[in-house]
Protein backbone atom coordinates (compact mmCIF):
# COMPACT_ATOMS: atom_id res chain seq x y z
CA UNK A 1 0.00 0.00 0.00
CA UNK A 2 3.00 2.32 0.40
CA UNK A 3 3.62 3.10 -3.24
CA UNK A 4 0.64 5.24 -4.11
CA UNK A 5 1.33 5.19 -7.84
CA UNK A 6 0.52 1.52 -8.40
CA UNK A 7 -2.56 1.40 -6.20
CA UNK A 8 -5.44 -0.34 -7.97
CA UNK A 9 -8.70 1.51 -8.63
CA UNK A 10 -10.62 -0.90 -6.43
CA UNK A 11 -9.06 -3.01 -3.72
CA UNK A 12 -10.90 -5.37 -1.41
CA UNK A 13 -8.91 -6.91 1.44
CA UNK A 14 -10.35 -9.90 3.28
CA UNK A 15 -13.94 -8.61 3.17
CA UNK A 16 -16.41 -10.34 5.46
CA UNK A 17 -20.10 -9.59 5.61
CA UNK A 18 -22.67 -11.23 7.84
CA UNK A 19 -26.43 -10.88 7.88
CA UNK A 20 -27.29 -12.18 11.32
CA UNK A 21 -25.78 -15.65 11.48
CA UNK A 22 -25.44 -16.00 7.75
CA UNK A 23 -21.97 -15.15 6.53
CA UNK A 24 -22.48 -13.98 2.97
CA UNK A 25 -18.90 -12.90 2.27
CA UNK A 26 -16.18 -14.98 3.87
CA UNK A 27 -12.93 -13.21 3.13
CA UNK A 28 -12.95 -11.75 -0.37
CA UNK A 29 -9.82 -10.04 -1.65
CA UNK A 30 -9.50 -8.58 -5.10
CA UNK A 31 -7.80 -5.77 -6.97
CA UNK A 32 -9.19 -4.07 -10.04
CA UNK A 33 -6.79 -1.94 -12.05
CA UNK A 34 -7.77 1.36 -13.64
CA UNK A 35 -9.60 0.66 -16.88
CA UNK A 36 -10.01 -3.02 -16.14
CA UNK A 37 -13.30 -4.86 -16.66
CA UNK A 38 -13.91 -7.65 -14.15
CA UNK A 39 -16.91 -9.91 -14.62
CA UNK A 40 -18.15 -11.81 -11.60
CA UNK A 41 -20.32 -14.88 -12.02
CA UNK A 42 -21.73 -17.23 -9.46
CA UNK A 43 -24.87 -18.99 -8.34
CA UNK A 44 -27.60 -16.89 -6.73
CA UNK A 45 -26.99 -16.23 -3.07
CA UNK A 46 -23.25 -16.59 -3.54
CA UNK A 47 -22.58 -13.05 -2.28
CA UNK A 48 -21.70 -11.32 -5.55
CA UNK A 49 -24.36 -8.60 -5.24
CA UNK A 50 -23.47 -8.09 -1.60
CA UNK A 51 -19.84 -7.56 -2.60
CA UNK A 52 -20.86 -4.79 -5.02
CA UNK A 53 -23.06 -3.19 -2.36
CA UNK A 54 -20.13 -3.25 0.08
CA UNK A 55 -17.89 -1.49 -2.43
CA UNK A 56 -20.05 1.64 -2.26
CA UNK A 57 -20.95 1.11 1.38
CA UNK A 58 -24.64 0.39 0.81
CA UNK A 59 -23.77 -2.51 3.09
CA UNK A 60 -21.30 -2.15 5.94
CA UNK A 61 -18.54 -4.75 5.98
CA UNK A 62 -18.05 -6.64 9.24
CA UNK A 63 -14.36 -7.17 8.66
CA UNK A 64 -11.74 -6.23 6.09
CA UNK A 65 -11.12 -3.10 4.08
CA UNK A 66 -12.23 -1.70 0.76
CA UNK A 67 -10.45 1.08 -1.08
CA UNK A 68 -11.61 2.96 -4.15
CA UNK A 69 -8.96 5.09 -5.82
CA UNK A 70 -6.82 4.79 -2.71
CA UNK A 71 -9.51 6.00 -0.32
CA UNK A 72 -10.91 3.63 2.31
CA UNK A 73 -14.64 3.18 1.69
CA UNK A 74 -16.94 4.02 4.58
CA UNK A 75 -14.15 4.20 7.09
CA UNK A 76 -11.35 6.55 7.90
CA UNK A 77 -7.99 5.67 9.30
CA UNK A 78 -7.40 7.55 12.54
CA UNK A 79 -4.13 6.62 14.27
CA UNK A 80 -4.15 3.14 12.81
CA UNK A 81 -7.79 2.53 13.76
CA UNK A 82 -10.71 2.53 11.38
CA UNK A 83 -13.62 4.76 12.28
CA UNK A 84 -16.83 4.91 10.28
CA UNK A 85 -17.04 8.09 8.23
CA UNK A 86 -19.79 10.63 8.65
CA UNK A 87 -22.76 10.39 6.31
CA UNK A 88 -21.65 13.33 4.21
CA UNK A 89 -18.24 11.88 3.63
CA UNK A 90 -19.70 8.50 2.69
CA UNK A 91 -22.08 10.26 0.30
CA UNK A 92 -19.24 12.20 -1.32
CA UNK A 93 -17.37 8.96 -1.88
CA UNK A 94 -20.42 7.27 -3.39
CA UNK A 95 -20.87 10.15 -5.81
CA UNK A 96 -17.81 8.93 -7.70
CA UNK A 97 -18.85 5.26 -7.69
CA UNK A 98 -21.53 4.60 -10.29
CA UNK A 99 -23.96 1.77 -9.68
CA UNK A 100 -26.50 0.13 -11.95
CA UNK A 101 -29.15 -2.07 -10.37
CA UNK A 102 -30.95 -5.18 -11.52
CA UNK A 103 -34.34 -3.49 -11.15
CA UNK A 104 -33.15 -0.16 -12.69
CA UNK A 105 -34.43 1.87 -9.70
CA UNK A 106 -35.14 4.91 -11.83
CA UNK A 107 -37.01 7.72 -10.09
CA UNK A 108 -40.54 7.28 -11.47
CA UNK A 109 -41.62 10.85 -10.72
CA UNK A 110 -38.90 12.35 -12.93
CA UNK A 111 -38.48 12.23 -16.71
CA UNK A 112 -35.51 10.44 -18.27
CA UNK A 113 -33.62 13.73 -18.39
CA UNK A 114 -34.79 14.58 -14.87
CA UNK A 115 -33.35 11.30 -13.63
CA UNK A 116 -30.02 12.02 -15.28
CA UNK A 117 -29.60 15.63 -14.11
CA UNK A 118 -30.96 15.42 -10.57
CA UNK A 119 -27.79 14.31 -8.82
CA UNK A 120 -25.43 16.51 -10.90
CA UNK A 121 -27.53 19.53 -9.89
CA UNK A 122 -28.30 18.65 -6.28
CA UNK A 123 -25.18 16.69 -5.33
CA UNK A 124 -22.46 18.07 -7.62
CA UNK A 125 -24.03 21.56 -7.53
CA UNK A 126 -23.72 21.88 -11.30
CA UNK A 127 -25.72 24.67 -12.93
CA UNK A 128 -29.06 23.53 -14.35
CA UNK A 129 -28.28 24.57 -17.91
CA UNK A 130 -24.92 22.87 -17.91
CA UNK A 131 -26.39 19.74 -16.33
CA UNK A 132 -29.14 19.62 -18.94
CA UNK A 133 -26.62 19.89 -21.74
CA UNK A 134 -24.50 17.14 -20.24
CA UNK A 135 -27.59 15.06 -19.51
CA UNK A 136 -28.81 15.30 -23.09
CA UNK A 137 -25.40 14.26 -24.35
CA UNK A 138 -25.40 11.34 -21.95
CA UNK A 139 -28.83 10.13 -23.05
CA UNK A 140 -27.76 10.52 -26.66
CA UNK A 141 -24.77 8.36 -25.91
CA UNK A 142 -27.01 5.52 -24.69
CA UNK A 143 -29.22 5.96 -27.75
CA UNK A 144 -32.16 7.71 -26.11
CA UNK A 145 -31.95 11.21 -27.55
CA UNK A 146 -35.66 10.99 -28.44
CA UNK A 147 -36.80 9.97 -24.94
CA UNK A 148 -35.64 12.94 -22.87
CA UNK A 149 -39.12 13.83 -21.64
CA UNK A 150 -40.48 10.32 -21.23
CA UNK A 151 -41.19 9.04 -17.75
CA UNK A 152 -39.72 5.67 -16.72
CA UNK A 153 -43.20 4.12 -16.81
CA UNK A 154 -43.38 4.92 -20.51
CA UNK A 155 -40.09 3.19 -21.37
CA UNK A 156 -39.25 -0.45 -22.01
CA UNK A 157 -37.03 -2.27 -19.56
CA UNK A 158 -34.02 -1.96 -21.85
CA UNK A 159 -34.59 1.76 -22.28
CA UNK A 160 -35.00 2.20 -18.53
CA UNK A 161 -31.74 0.42 -17.85
CA UNK A 162 -29.98 2.61 -20.41
CA UNK A 163 -31.34 5.70 -18.66
CA UNK A 164 -30.05 4.25 -15.38
CA UNK A 165 -26.59 3.85 -16.93
CA UNK A 166 -26.73 7.43 -18.22
CA UNK A 167 -27.79 8.60 -14.77
CA UNK A 168 -24.78 6.94 -13.16
CA UNK A 169 -22.40 8.22 -15.86
CA UNK A 170 -23.64 11.79 -15.44
CA UNK A 171 -21.84 11.86 -12.10
CA UNK A 172 -18.56 11.18 -13.93
CA UNK A 173 -17.75 8.19 -11.75
CA UNK A 174 -14.29 6.70 -11.41
CA UNK A 175 -15.70 3.20 -11.44
CA UNK A 176 -18.96 1.57 -12.45
CA UNK A 177 -20.58 -1.33 -10.63
CA UNK A 178 -23.20 -3.34 -12.51
CA UNK A 179 -25.42 -5.60 -10.42
CA UNK A 180 -27.02 -8.10 -12.82
CA UNK A 181 -28.03 -5.28 -15.16
CA UNK A 182 -29.84 -7.51 -17.65
CA UNK A 183 -31.42 -10.12 -15.39
CA UNK A 184 -34.78 -8.36 -15.18
CA UNK A 185 -35.02 -7.78 -18.93
CA UNK A 186 -36.93 -9.62 -21.62
CA UNK A 187 -34.42 -11.55 -23.74
CA UNK A 188 -34.85 -9.34 -26.79
CA UNK A 189 -33.92 -6.24 -24.77
CA UNK A 190 -30.69 -7.58 -23.28
CA UNK A 191 -28.57 -6.76 -26.33
CA UNK A 192 -29.15 -3.01 -26.33
CA UNK A 193 -28.01 -2.73 -22.71
CA UNK A 194 -24.95 -4.92 -23.26
CA UNK A 195 -24.00 -2.77 -26.27
CA UNK A 196 -23.92 0.33 -24.08
CA UNK A 197 -21.79 -1.49 -21.52
CA UNK A 198 -19.40 -2.69 -24.21
CA UNK A 199 -18.82 0.80 -25.53
CA UNK A 200 -18.24 1.99 -21.98
CA UNK A 201 -15.63 -0.73 -21.50
CA UNK A 202 -13.93 0.28 -24.75
CA UNK A 203 -13.69 3.85 -23.47
CA UNK A 204 -11.60 2.60 -20.59
CA UNK A 205 -14.10 2.72 -17.72
CA UNK A 206 -13.14 0.64 -14.71
CA UNK A 207 -16.01 -1.81 -14.28
CA UNK A 208 -17.12 -4.66 -12.10
CA UNK A 209 -20.02 -6.49 -13.71
CA UNK A 210 -22.05 -9.16 -11.97
CA UNK A 211 -23.85 -11.01 -14.72
CA UNK A 212 -24.82 -14.36 -16.17
CA UNK A 213 -24.29 -13.11 -19.73
CA UNK A 214 -21.30 -15.29 -20.52
CA UNK A 215 -21.13 -14.18 -24.16
CA UNK A 216 -20.65 -10.61 -22.97
CA UNK A 217 -18.08 -11.75 -20.42
CA UNK A 218 -16.03 -13.65 -23.02
CA UNK A 219 -15.99 -10.62 -25.27
CA UNK A 220 -15.47 -7.77 -22.81
CA UNK A 221 -13.97 -9.06 -19.57
CA UNK A 222 -10.30 -8.60 -18.86
CA UNK A 223 -10.71 -10.95 -15.96
CA UNK A 224 -13.36 -13.46 -14.84
CA UNK A 225 -14.23 -14.46 -11.33
CA UNK A 226 -16.45 -17.12 -9.89
CA UNK A 227 -17.81 -16.42 -6.43
CA UNK A 228 -19.48 -19.21 -4.51
CA UNK A 229 -20.51 -19.37 -0.88
CA UNK A 230 -18.86 -16.05 -0.15
CA UNK A 231 -15.39 -16.74 -1.49
CA UNK A 232 -13.68 -16.29 -4.86
CA UNK A 233 -13.38 -19.81 -6.20
CA UNK A 234 -11.70 -19.15 -9.52
CA UNK A 235 -10.14 -16.14 -11.15
CA UNK A 236 -8.41 -15.64 -14.47
CA UNK A 237 -8.56 -14.34 -18.02
CA UNK A 238 -11.77 -15.33 -19.84
CA UNK A 239 -10.02 -17.75 -22.20
CA UNK A 240 -8.67 -19.76 -19.32
CA UNK A 241 -11.81 -19.39 -17.23
CA UNK A 242 -14.12 -20.73 -19.91
CA UNK A 243 -11.90 -23.21 -21.72
CA UNK A 244 -9.66 -24.49 -19.01
CA UNK A 245 -11.10 -23.93 -15.53
CA UNK A 246 -9.00 -25.27 -12.71
CA UNK A 247 -11.70 -25.94 -10.16
CA UNK A 248 -14.45 -28.53 -10.20
CA UNK A 249 -16.89 -25.92 -8.87
CA UNK A 250 -16.24 -23.71 -11.90
CA UNK A 251 -16.69 -26.61 -14.31
CA UNK A 252 -19.96 -27.50 -12.65
CA UNK A 253 -21.17 -23.90 -12.77
CA UNK A 254 -20.21 -23.46 -16.42
CA UNK A 255 -21.86 -26.74 -17.40
CA UNK A 256 -25.09 -25.44 -15.89
CA UNK A 257 -25.22 -22.04 -17.51
CA UNK A 258 -23.50 -22.51 -20.88
Amino acid at each position, binding site marked *: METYGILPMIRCEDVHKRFGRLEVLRGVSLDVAKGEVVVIAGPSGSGKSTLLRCINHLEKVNQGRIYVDGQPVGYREVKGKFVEKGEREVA*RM*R*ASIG*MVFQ*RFNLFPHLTALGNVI*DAPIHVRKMGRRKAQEAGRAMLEKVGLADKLDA*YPGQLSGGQQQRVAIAR*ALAMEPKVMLFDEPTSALDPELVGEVLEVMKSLAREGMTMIVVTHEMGFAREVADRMMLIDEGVIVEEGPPAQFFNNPRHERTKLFLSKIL
Partner: protein
Amino acid sequence: MSIPLPSLDFEPDVVWRFLFSSVILEGARTTIIVAVLAQALGVSLGIASALMRMSKNPLLNVPANLYVWFFRGTPLLVQLLFWYNGVPELFDNPDLTHQLTSFRVAIFALGVNEGAYMTEIVRAGIESVEAGQMDAAKSLGMTSGKAMRRVILPQALRVILPPTGNEFIAMLKNSSLCFAIALVELANAARFIYSDNYKVMELLVVASIWYLVMTTVFSLIQAELEARLAAGVRDRPPTLFGRMTEAFGAGRTRLR
Protein backbone atom coordinates in the same frame (compact mmCIF):
# COMPACT_ATOMS: atom_id res chain seq x y z
CA MET B 1 -110.33 13.68 3.82
CA SER B 2 -107.12 15.59 3.96
CA ILE B 3 -104.08 14.91 6.01
CA PRO B 4 -103.17 18.06 7.88
CA LEU B 5 -99.70 19.25 6.89
CA PRO B 6 -97.56 20.19 9.79
CA SER B 7 -96.96 23.86 9.68
CA LEU B 8 -93.35 24.31 8.62
CA ASP B 9 -91.85 27.32 10.24
CA PHE B 10 -89.06 27.73 7.73
CA GLU B 11 -88.42 31.00 5.97
CA PRO B 12 -86.15 30.65 2.94
CA ASP B 13 -85.65 34.39 2.68
CA VAL B 14 -84.02 34.34 6.13
CA VAL B 15 -81.43 31.92 4.72
CA TRP B 16 -80.80 34.28 1.86
CA ARG B 17 -80.57 37.29 4.17
CA PHE B 18 -77.95 35.71 6.43
CA LEU B 19 -75.97 33.82 3.78
CA PHE B 20 -73.79 36.85 3.09
CA SER B 21 -74.10 38.56 6.44
CA SER B 22 -70.84 39.82 7.87
CA VAL B 23 -70.95 37.61 10.98
CA ILE B 24 -71.37 34.46 8.87
CA LEU B 25 -68.70 35.49 6.35
CA GLU B 26 -66.33 36.35 9.15
CA GLY B 27 -67.03 32.95 10.71
CA ALA B 28 -66.40 31.17 7.41
CA ARG B 29 -63.14 33.06 7.03
CA THR B 30 -62.06 31.98 10.52
CA THR B 31 -62.97 28.37 9.73
CA ILE B 32 -60.82 28.40 6.59
CA ILE B 33 -57.85 30.10 8.24
CA VAL B 34 -57.93 27.83 11.28
CA ALA B 35 -58.36 24.69 9.17
CA VAL B 36 -55.57 25.58 6.72
CA LEU B 37 -53.07 26.56 9.40
CA ALA B 38 -53.96 23.62 11.65
CA GLN B 39 -53.66 21.21 8.71
CA ALA B 40 -50.28 22.71 7.77
CA LEU B 41 -49.11 22.24 11.35
CA GLY B 42 -50.50 18.71 11.34
CA VAL B 43 -48.71 17.79 8.10
CA SER B 44 -45.40 19.18 9.38
CA LEU B 45 -45.72 17.37 12.69
CA GLY B 46 -46.83 14.25 10.85
CA ILE B 47 -43.75 14.21 8.59
CA ALA B 48 -41.40 14.82 11.53
CA SER B 49 -43.06 12.25 13.72
CA ALA B 50 -43.29 9.66 10.92
CA LEU B 51 -39.54 9.98 10.30
CA MET B 52 -38.93 9.69 14.04
CA ARG B 53 -41.24 6.71 14.31
CA MET B 54 -39.40 4.90 11.51
CA SER B 55 -36.02 5.53 13.13
CA LYS B 56 -34.27 2.67 14.88
CA ASN B 57 -33.13 5.04 17.63
CA PRO B 58 -35.44 4.67 20.66
CA LEU B 59 -34.76 8.31 21.64
CA LEU B 60 -36.63 9.21 18.45
CA ASN B 61 -39.20 6.48 17.97
CA VAL B 62 -40.44 6.22 21.56
CA PRO B 63 -41.53 9.90 21.84
CA ALA B 64 -43.16 9.66 18.40
CA ASN B 65 -45.05 6.53 19.40
CA LEU B 66 -46.22 8.16 22.64
CA TYR B 67 -47.35 11.22 20.72
CA VAL B 68 -49.48 9.20 18.33
CA TRP B 69 -50.79 7.00 21.13
CA PHE B 70 -51.89 9.97 23.25
CA PHE B 71 -53.38 12.28 20.67
CA ARG B 72 -55.16 9.58 18.72
CA GLY B 73 -56.44 8.00 21.88
CA THR B 74 -58.12 10.98 23.52
CA PRO B 75 -61.10 12.97 22.19
CA LEU B 76 -60.40 16.15 20.28
CA LEU B 77 -62.88 18.03 22.47
CA VAL B 78 -60.94 17.04 25.59
CA GLN B 79 -57.69 18.15 23.94
CA LEU B 80 -59.19 21.56 23.06
CA LEU B 81 -60.32 22.08 26.65
CA PHE B 82 -56.97 20.81 27.88
CA TRP B 83 -55.04 23.53 26.03
CA TYR B 84 -57.60 26.29 26.48
CA ASN B 85 -58.78 25.76 30.07
CA GLY B 86 -56.39 23.24 31.60
CA VAL B 87 -53.04 24.73 30.72
CA PRO B 88 -53.81 28.31 31.94
CA GLU B 89 -55.24 26.82 35.12
CA LEU B 90 -52.09 24.76 35.61
CA PHE B 91 -49.67 27.66 35.22
CA ASP B 92 -51.89 30.35 36.69
CA ASN B 93 -49.96 33.03 34.82
CA PRO B 94 -52.09 35.95 33.57
CA ASP B 95 -49.66 36.72 30.75
CA LEU B 96 -49.85 33.16 29.46
CA THR B 97 -53.62 33.05 29.79
CA HIS B 98 -53.81 36.28 27.83
CA GLN B 99 -51.61 34.80 25.09
CA LEU B 100 -53.75 31.69 24.76
CA THR B 101 -56.51 33.15 22.63
CA SER B 102 -59.26 30.94 21.18
CA PHE B 103 -57.81 31.44 17.71
CA ARG B 104 -54.27 30.41 18.65
CA VAL B 105 -55.35 27.48 20.79
CA ALA B 106 -57.68 26.27 18.03
CA ILE B 107 -54.88 26.15 15.47
CA PHE B 108 -52.45 24.58 17.90
CA ALA B 109 -54.81 21.98 19.36
CA LEU B 110 -56.30 20.95 16.01
CA GLY B 111 -52.81 20.84 14.45
CA VAL B 112 -51.28 18.74 17.20
CA ASN B 113 -54.22 16.34 17.06
CA GLU B 114 -54.02 16.17 13.29
CA GLY B 115 -50.27 15.48 13.45
CA ALA B 116 -50.96 12.17 15.18
CA TYR B 117 -53.18 11.00 12.31
CA MET B 118 -50.83 12.42 9.68
CA THR B 119 -47.96 10.45 11.23
CA GLU B 120 -49.59 7.21 10.17
CA ILE B 121 -50.53 8.54 6.75
CA VAL B 122 -47.01 9.81 6.05
CA ARG B 123 -45.45 6.59 7.33
CA ALA B 124 -47.65 4.50 5.06
CA GLY B 125 -46.65 6.76 2.16
CA ILE B 126 -42.93 6.47 2.83
CA GLU B 127 -43.16 2.71 3.30
CA SER B 128 -44.94 2.41 -0.04
CA VAL B 129 -41.77 3.55 -1.85
CA GLU B 130 -39.50 0.68 -2.89
CA ALA B 131 -36.26 0.26 -0.93
CA GLY B 132 -34.35 0.33 -4.22
CA GLN B 133 -35.17 4.03 -4.57
CA MET B 134 -33.14 4.85 -1.46
CA ASP B 135 -30.27 2.65 -2.71
CA ALA B 136 -30.27 4.44 -6.06
CA ALA B 137 -30.37 7.89 -4.46
CA LYS B 138 -27.53 7.01 -2.10
CA SER B 139 -25.47 5.49 -4.90
CA LEU B 140 -25.67 8.89 -6.61
CA GLY B 141 -24.11 10.54 -3.58
CA MET B 142 -27.21 11.81 -1.80
CA THR B 143 -27.27 11.82 1.99
CA SER B 144 -30.33 10.10 3.43
CA GLY B 145 -31.91 13.48 4.19
CA LYS B 146 -31.50 14.65 0.62
CA ALA B 147 -32.70 11.31 -0.71
CA MET B 148 -35.78 11.64 1.49
CA ARG B 149 -36.55 15.14 0.20
CA ARG B 150 -35.73 14.65 -3.46
CA VAL B 151 -36.65 11.01 -4.09
CA ILE B 152 -38.71 9.34 -1.36
CA LEU B 153 -41.14 12.05 -0.24
CA PRO B 154 -42.17 13.17 -3.76
CA GLN B 155 -43.16 9.57 -4.48
CA ALA B 156 -44.73 9.07 -1.07
CA LEU B 157 -46.83 12.17 -1.71
CA ARG B 158 -48.96 10.27 -4.21
CA VAL B 159 -49.99 7.86 -1.51
CA ILE B 160 -50.19 10.55 1.17
CA LEU B 161 -52.33 13.06 -0.70
CA PRO B 162 -55.73 11.30 -0.99
CA PRO B 163 -56.09 10.49 2.73
CA THR B 164 -54.71 13.94 3.57
CA GLY B 165 -57.54 15.41 1.50
CA ASN B 166 -59.96 13.44 3.64
CA GLU B 167 -58.23 14.73 6.73
CA PHE B 168 -58.51 18.33 5.57
CA ILE B 169 -62.20 17.98 4.84
CA ALA B 170 -62.65 16.48 8.29
CA MET B 171 -60.62 19.39 9.66
CA LEU B 172 -62.89 21.98 8.05
CA LYS B 173 -65.83 20.40 9.81
CA ASN B 174 -64.14 19.40 13.08
CA SER B 175 -63.03 22.97 13.60
CA SER B 176 -66.67 23.59 14.60
CA LEU B 177 -65.82 21.80 17.86
CA CYS B 178 -63.94 24.98 18.73
CA PHE B 179 -67.23 26.46 19.85
CA ALA B 180 -66.17 24.84 23.16
CA ILE B 181 -63.27 27.28 23.41
CA ALA B 182 -65.35 30.27 22.33
CA LEU B 183 -63.96 30.52 18.81
CA VAL B 184 -66.38 32.27 16.47
CA GLU B 185 -65.98 30.04 13.47
CA LEU B 186 -68.75 29.30 10.97
CA ALA B 187 -70.97 26.99 13.04
CA ASN B 188 -70.56 29.06 16.16
CA ALA B 189 -71.35 32.25 14.21
CA ALA B 190 -74.62 30.66 13.10
CA ARG B 191 -75.33 29.64 16.67
CA PHE B 192 -74.74 33.20 17.85
CA ILE B 193 -77.27 34.53 15.43
CA TYR B 194 -80.00 31.96 16.09
CA SER B 195 -79.65 32.29 19.85
CA ASP B 196 -80.66 35.86 19.21
CA ASN B 197 -83.37 35.51 16.55
CA TYR B 198 -84.48 31.86 17.07
CA LYS B 199 -84.25 31.08 13.33
CA VAL B 200 -82.41 27.88 14.23
CA MET B 201 -83.06 25.81 11.12
CA GLU B 202 -82.46 28.66 8.71
CA LEU B 203 -79.07 29.45 10.22
CA LEU B 204 -78.01 25.82 10.33
CA VAL B 205 -78.85 25.68 6.63
CA VAL B 206 -76.74 28.81 6.06
CA ALA B 207 -73.78 27.22 7.84
CA SER B 208 -74.25 23.94 5.96
CA ILE B 209 -74.28 25.71 2.60
CA TRP B 210 -70.93 27.32 3.36
CA TYR B 211 -69.44 24.06 4.59
CA LEU B 212 -70.56 22.37 1.37
CA VAL B 213 -69.07 25.19 -0.72
CA MET B 214 -65.74 24.86 1.09
CA THR B 215 -65.54 21.08 0.83
CA THR B 216 -66.59 21.13 -2.83
CA VAL B 217 -63.99 23.72 -3.81
CA PHE B 218 -61.36 21.82 -1.88
CA SER B 219 -62.28 18.51 -3.54
CA LEU B 220 -61.69 20.11 -6.93
CA ILE B 221 -58.31 21.42 -5.82
CA GLN B 222 -57.40 17.99 -4.50
CA ALA B 223 -58.33 16.27 -7.76
CA GLU B 224 -56.13 18.73 -9.64
CA LEU B 225 -53.19 18.17 -7.28
CA GLU B 226 -53.54 14.40 -7.61
CA ALA B 227 -53.58 14.64 -11.39
CA ARG B 228 -50.38 16.66 -11.34
CA LEU B 229 -48.65 14.23 -9.02
CA ALA B 230 -49.65 11.33 -11.23
CA ALA B 231 -47.15 12.53 -13.85
CA GLY B 232 -45.38 9.57 -15.32
CA VAL B 233 -47.28 6.97 -13.37
CA ARG B 234 -50.62 6.45 -14.92
CA ASP B 235 -53.20 8.24 -16.93
CA ARG B 236 -56.08 9.56 -14.97
CA PRO B 237 -59.37 10.84 -16.27
CA PRO B 238 -58.95 14.57 -16.79
CA THR B 239 -60.06 16.63 -13.83
CA LEU B 240 -62.77 19.24 -14.02
CA PHE B 241 -60.14 21.99 -13.76
CA GLY B 242 -58.09 20.29 -16.43
CA ARG B 243 -61.06 20.08 -18.76
CA MET B 244 -61.94 23.71 -18.13
CA THR B 245 -58.44 24.99 -18.77
CA GLU B 246 -58.11 22.82 -21.85
CA ALA B 247 -61.40 24.19 -23.14
CA PHE B 248 -59.88 27.63 -22.94
CA GLY B 249 -56.79 26.51 -24.78
CA ALA B 250 -54.60 26.73 -21.71
CA GLY B 251 -54.36 22.99 -21.12
CA ARG B 252 -51.00 21.48 -20.48
CA THR B 253 -49.90 19.02 -23.08
CA ARG B 254 -50.44 15.58 -21.69
CA LEU B 255 -47.99 12.83 -22.33
CA ARG B 256 -49.11 9.61 -23.92
